[in-house]
């Protein structure tokens, strides 16, 4: 649903659920006022996410702070019959921890790009809208963020 993706995008940007809620609410009120100007035939989600991201960034600017995005793995709920072996589970769990730790060492901008594209699974156009950059620069920004993530993971292994 749009409300979920809007809220999570604002959360990735602000790092705070309370700020994300306010930003998403304000964004939807603004989207409502701007709905008559929405260009017919244009994709809706990037348009909406641009408004959401602007609201989220305005909130950070106004507050003069940005909370650190707390990334946690949810309590595991394995479907019946798909329980991995203890060794496999340990490996997967170690990989996750390693990845989360490496993400924690990245800049906010890199984490934001990765979160939008891979965690929220936004399209390139939606990621560009959320990051406030041109669609053409999404690929290069992500590529640099992934390079730095790889470096962080290697540094963690060393």
């Amino acid at each position, binding site marked *: *649903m749009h409300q979920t993706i809007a809220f999570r995008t604002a959360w990735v940007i602000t790092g705070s659920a309370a700020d994300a809620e306010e930003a998403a609410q304000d964004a939807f009120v603004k989207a409502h006022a701007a709905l008559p100007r929405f260009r017919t035939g244009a994709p809706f989600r990037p348009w909406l996410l641009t408004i959401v991201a602007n609201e989220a960034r305005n909130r950070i600017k106004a507050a003069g702070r940005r909370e650190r995005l707390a990334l946690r793995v949810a309590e595991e709920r394995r479907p019946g019959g798909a329980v991995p072996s203890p060794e496999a589970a340990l490996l997967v769990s170690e990989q996750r921890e390693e990845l989360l730790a490496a993400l924690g060492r990245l800049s906010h901008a890199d984490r934001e790009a990765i979160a939008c594209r891979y965690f929220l699974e936004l399209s390139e156009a939606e990621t560009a809208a959320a990051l406030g950059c041109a669609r053409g620069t999404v690929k290069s920004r992500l590529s640099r963020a992934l390079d730095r993530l790889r470096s962080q993971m290697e540094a963690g292994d060393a």
Partner: protein
Amino acid sequence: MPELERMLTRLGRELEYPPTPDLARRVAGRVRAGAAATPPEGRSRARRRILPPASLRRALVLALVALLLLAGTVFAAVPGVRDAVLEFFGIQGATVERRAQLPEPPELRPLDLGGRVTLSEAAAELDFTPLVPAALGDPDAVYVRRELPGGELSLAYRPRPGLPAARTTRLALLASEFRGDLHPDLVGKLAGPGTRIEQLQVGGRPAIWIEGAQHFFFYRGPDGNLIESELRLAQNVLLIERGRVLVRLEGAFDRGRALEIAHSLAPSPGE
């Protein structure tokens, strides 16, 4: 997709996200209370200029609520519909979404319109006064569905000269009526890029005309989700707001004939 990107996508699906708050209710409340019309000092002139007229604004509030609440539910419920909403139209009682892709058309099946009654029995059972198109006279059959609060009325007209059968209903006209104010998003339409969707006014009241190409009609359940068994193909449709009532006219007629029928809607004789 390279391994690192696959790992990130997998991790994203396992992350714990803060629960999504009930934005739809809060935003609709703010919009209805006129939050958008009372911006902070210094910006009021610019903001007021872009506000649409009150009737359109009300339709937009409903459209927005539906966007927040419902967009994506159709998507999740119908395999093959994986696109974002391209266009969105709202009226009290119904929403229309234009999408790049549509689901596979379901087979045509008999309509479930409820129990057959007389017009005066329907008037006694319903929580609103039935509207009958005087241009066509009394309907050939009248049905009432009672499950819906306020009830739902269906008027069926057999084909006649100048008014052929619609391939979707085998009727010349199927007119459905229910309390749109009680069920702001009860019926939905899913249209593809080739369908003409036009917002208009009928007797000064908001209306939507949907014509051509394949499009769908469905009811939403109490949870707001599409009821798959209710998804069916629709022919040309005019949706009209008449006070508290949403009137839906479906047939093989063109826009002019639909408007003529709509203009002739009047409380059933004897009411």
